[in-house]
């Protein structure tokens, strides 16, 4: 009962802040609502019992990635394009049909999602009964080692790409 109340309250906040992200005029306010959204998602993770993921969500997502978003948004002085001032509902029909299509897709996935075959997990190593962090660490380094290494290579490539793009002379 308490879990249900907590979940619905958190979900209401998450959705509310998500709506404010896209509907507010000021870009910096939009980023700040995004931060609040992430903090409540971290609370949702705690509700699910994944404390490690919750703290990492705050540390990496809310405390690192969105800070960089904020830098960019603050320094790049985005002005609205002149057409935006004319008619707020000029793309009304297109928006309506697009959101209807996405909603139908979500409903279909929700209905048929329960019947999907079990995802193949290659040779799950015996996870020791420990705290959250130990279990995540075990899984990352045994069953999911290859995706972990590929993800770190991806981050490295992204970093190098960012430096190459940003430097004036190399």
């Amino acid at each position, binding site marked *: 009962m308490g879990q249900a109340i907590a979940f619905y309250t958190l979900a209401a906040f998450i959705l509310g802040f998500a709506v404010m992200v896209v509907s507010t005029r000021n870009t910096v306010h939009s980023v700040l609502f995004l931060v609040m959204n992430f903090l409540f998602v971290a609370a949702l993770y705690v509700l699910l019992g994944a*404390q*490690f993921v919750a703290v990492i969500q705050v540390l990496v997502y*809310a405390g690192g990635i969105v*800070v960089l978003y*904020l830098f960019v948004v*603050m320094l790049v002085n985005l002005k609205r394009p002149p057409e935006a001032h004319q008619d707020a509902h000029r793309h009304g029909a297109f928006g309506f049909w697009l959101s209807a299509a996405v909603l139908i897709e979500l409903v279909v996935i929700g209905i048929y999602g329960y019947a999907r075959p079990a995802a193949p997990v290659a040779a799950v190593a015996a996870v020791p009964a420990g705290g*959250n962090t130990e279990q995540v660490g075990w899984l990352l380094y045994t069953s999911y080692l290859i995706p972990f290494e590929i993800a770190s290579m991806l981050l490295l490539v992204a970093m190098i790409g960012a430096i190459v793009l940003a430097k004036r002379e190399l």
Partner: protein
Amino acid sequence: MIDTVVIPLLKIVIVLNATLVAVTYMVLLERKVIAWAQSRLGPMRVGPYGILQPVADAVKLMIKEDITPVRADKWVFTIAPIISMVPALIVYAVIPFGPKITLFGRQVSLYITDINVGLLYVVSVASVGVYGIILAGWSSNSKYPLLASLRASAQLISYEVAVTLTLVSVILMAGTLSMVGIVNAQYNQHVWYMFAQPLAFVFVLIGGLAETNRAPFDLPEAEQELTGGFHTEYSGMRFALFFLAEYANMIVVSSVVTTLFIGGWLPPFPNTPVLHFLYYVPSWIWFFVESFVFLYMFIWLRATLPRYRYDQLMRLGWKVLIPLAIANLVATGIVKVLVS
């Protein structure tokens, strides 16, 4: 009911009040210590030996006019000091002041809570505190604060990386992320991590100095360079909140360093039977004394060292501390595998 709600609430009330009083008196302590380092006396007029000076400061700041710049973003301008202060206070939820003791016939643990990702919680809350500085500078709608806040936040996020990497080697030695677990690990392994990981100790101290914008890394709030930095446009109680948030962060860093490296509530040499009389001193007194030593050290460093230039600061963070922290981590891992 009593154990799950009333006692934690009481602990929270006590810890919050003690923190706020401590933070207010840190102002006086800093002025006194810097004065003594400079062969003068500091505040002496208000109350005996200047004891009531923080009260005078608080009253002055509260009755000052609260100015909001005309073109400033009102909401963000208002919540920026709050965003600075709140993370500094909520970290106290995981800092252990002592073990379980018996108080009035009940087993009471001298910490508000012990979550199994305690140290990560501390680091993540510190990373949210950066927002206060960024938003303060941006919402002031003025050149100097914006520049200063960008510099300050770049400094903070750089040193966050260095400190987090260094803390991983401490976690490796302790085998657990919970703060109480780390203190217990120091007891079980018969060594304070200050001696087992001297490099990590030094790096966390340096990183902690940089994280709280303290000298010698206090360029973001150096009056001579940036006319007051990110809190230029703040006056009265809002400025007081920033000020107090900085001191609260300092106390938090001292407490965390005490817990991780000096055995928290353990007396010196906790396992030698000869020194068992040290256990008569309550555990939390050891904790406060050790934190106080680090606080004094922070103020002492401010009185002594000149300020780093910004590019030197960033170079230190990225090119020196991060490689050394990674090297420390690798060495710790190798030693741990060889020994066990």
